[in-house]
């Protein structure tokens, strides 16, 4: 199987992949949010698997969550209660938004996966005391893992894990940059599958396969297409069909601000010195998600930086319905783009995408006015 196929396979059926890893004797932890310190989990010899949540058959979660809860939280709880996560040895809940906080409680009270940890990260990432607290939280999580699984996570193992993650993040970034320069090298949905696959697959294997994929793609000749260049902004994208629809409408997604995208790979960890302190610095300094607080204009500046760097013609906001942090940032980000004359559109999505025809028309209309 080609490296790309392997990522696509894992992304298509993450549960199947994780289940086969579990039956080969690997421990598996589920996680939410790109702020999860996966590096520590990997250093413990445990496979971290990002949970995206079921898209259908979520009615079992309705007994615990009101209708105004986002589909990600509802889908994840439904998966847990429907036995679709039977391969998990536990789950990790980093401090994210209000909904994930309460999902943590509901999960703890209603599911029984063995290991459970809240990683209550700081929300503000601007002060030395917050950085110190973040470091303390990571140390506590390391200790909780050691205790929960009766193992020791050595500094050496942690350093090796940081190197693996640096390699993964660097490769993902290289792929994104390659794709930005030459979108024809692979489709947007394929790149999205690589991204999601890398959040599920054995990380040493993922690092190696990413390297192989990058060199395979680098060998492809550069082509000059006439497609417009757009960027996706939002929480996460596990709707690969969106990329194909945008491509059919005449544009390529050349960059993003997503936690299944640039927010996941930006920020390399120093592998010198105390590994926990290095790790803390990465999470402290990386591009923030709107559930965290850094500079009040940081996200707008970051967005405009990416628009300029990648010669983006237009921005598509992919807004998960009932996602408070992203909904609060939207008017400001839109205003920032409007001021700079960058066309943008808002697409509110739930578990199920709007009908294809309707979506295609909306994308076509938007992309046709880009210049």
């Amino acid at each position: 199987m080609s490296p790309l196929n392997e990522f696509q396979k894992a992304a298509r059926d993450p549960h199947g992949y994780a289940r086969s890893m579990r039956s080969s004797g690997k421990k598996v932890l589920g996680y939410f949010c790109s702020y999860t310190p996966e590096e520590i989990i990997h250093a413990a010899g445990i496979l971290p698997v990002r949970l995206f949540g079921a898209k259908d058959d979520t009615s079992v979660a309705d007994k615990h969550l009101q209708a105004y809860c986002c589909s990600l939280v509802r889908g994840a709880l439904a998966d847990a209660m429907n036995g679709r996560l039977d391969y998990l040895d536990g789950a990790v809940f980093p401090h994210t938004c209000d909904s994930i906080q309460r999902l943590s409680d509901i999960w703890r009270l209603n599911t029984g996966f063995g290991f459970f940890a809240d990683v209550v990260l700081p929300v503000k990432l601007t002060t030395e005391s917050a950085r110190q607290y973040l470091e303390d939280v990571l140390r506590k999580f390391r200790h909780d893992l050691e205790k929960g699984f009766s193992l020791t996570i050595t500094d050496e193992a942690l350093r090796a894990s940081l190197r693996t993650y640096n390699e993964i993040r660097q490769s993902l970034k290289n792929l994104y940059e390659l794709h930005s320069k030459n979108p024809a090298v692979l489709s947007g949905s394929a790149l999205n599958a690589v991204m999601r696959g890398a959040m599920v697959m054995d990380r040493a294997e993922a690092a190696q396969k990413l390297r192989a994929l990058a060199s395979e793609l680098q060998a492809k000749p550069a082509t000059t297409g006439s497609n417009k260049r757009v960027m996706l902004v939002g929480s996460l994208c596990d709707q690969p069909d969106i990329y194909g629809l945008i491509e059919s409408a005449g544009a390529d997604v050349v960059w993003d601000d997503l936690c299944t995208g640039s927010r996941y790979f930006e920020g390399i960890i120093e592998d010198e010195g105390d590994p926990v302190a290095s790790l803390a610095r990465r999470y402290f300094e990386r591009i923030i998600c709107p559930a965290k607080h850094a500079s009040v204009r940081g996200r707008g500046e970051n967005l405009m930086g990416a628009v300029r760097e990648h010669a983006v013609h237009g921005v598509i906001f992919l807004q998960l319905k009932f996602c408070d942090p992203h909904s609060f940032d939207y008017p400001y980000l839109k205003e920032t783009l409007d001021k700079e004359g960058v066309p943008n559109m808002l697409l509110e999505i739930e578990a199920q995408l709007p009908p294809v025809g309707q979506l295609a028309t909306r994308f076509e209309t938007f992309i046709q006015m880009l210049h």
Partner: protein
Amino acid sequence: MSTPDKDKTRKFRAAKRMREIMTEYYIDAKSAPQTGKKVAWITSGGPVEPLIIMDVIPVYPENYGAMIGASHMGADLCGKAEAMGYSADLCSYARADIACAVENGGPIGGLPRPDMLICCNNICGTVLKWYEVHARYFDVPLFVFDTPMCHTEFPDIARKYVRKQLDEYIDFLERVCGRTFDLARSTEVGRLSLEGQRLWQKVLDTAAHKPAPMTAFDAFFFLALIVTLRGTQVVVDFYQELLAEMAERIERRIWAIPNERYRLLWDNLPVWYRLKWLSDTFAAHDACLVADTYTTAWCGSMKYINEDNFIDSMAEAYTRIYLNIGVDEMVKTVYDMVDKYQVDGMVMHSNRSCKPYSFGQYDIMRMVQENKGIPCMMIESHMTDERTFSESQTATRIDAFMEMIRQKKG
């Protein structure tokens, strides 16, 4: 239905006094540019005492949100926020308040412009985003007081982090106000804050009397002072007066619901634009909402306050508040209230505006039904945006719920 005469005796004398205090307070806040005082906008669960010590006037957009809701201006203002791009699924306090800031409208002609913003996330993550919006709009300094969620514990690392932030908060205030923080005053303000909370708890406790001299709807009204002016003498004096009035009512047998037969517990914030309607609807069933988890939250963490070392103890008191704890911790408070106020049922307000308060309610409901054996019901609204509220559906649910209570209790 009661006669107008009886209604008159049931009106609280203290209500008039409270309106006077609130009017004075808002006049004081609105004339800050003339008096040279600084104004801070602060979240309802935020540490206000350092502002009192620094002579800064605290202003509460959330209290304002309640005013907007009660004066039926929420729908219009929330609609304006939606036109600005804010989703209709966001907190209606935030939407209404953000629209007011830009429109310069709303009750009392808008809030006085802030010199600084103090945002404590012990109640939700929404306030962080809301205050970031204001920080961009008003271009004034923002202090974020970050209180890690205590799902099951308050670990030492969190204690250290929050305690350190109190120093940073004081530094921030000194910088913005251009004068030094008077540490000696903190003992006095701390004492007044604690005394205010004690008295507020005592006021709420009077509803444990059967029949109750007050309802949760009264508590929603009288709450404003413990939220806005905690740490001042005026709050202490006022609640002493209110407490005396409650004692007098018990003495004179003036009950909130003349023929109180059923006692209910309310969960979550009020439906601000239907206070009277809800109050009347339950009263028509001889049901009294004797207590609520919401107004109790402003005295719920008294146990962590150390009068002799107020500043240090604020770290724990402000972190371990009702909403910043796990669902299983919250339900313990509910159990205590069920026993203390001897309630026959619980009314849960599933509040689309407040996810941290509302998600987990189904689990709490189940636990209360199982462990306390009382019926529970749920009504849904956006607390300040009446466009989503269905009066007929809610009335039907209340009727069915009261029927269940009646059958159970007789």
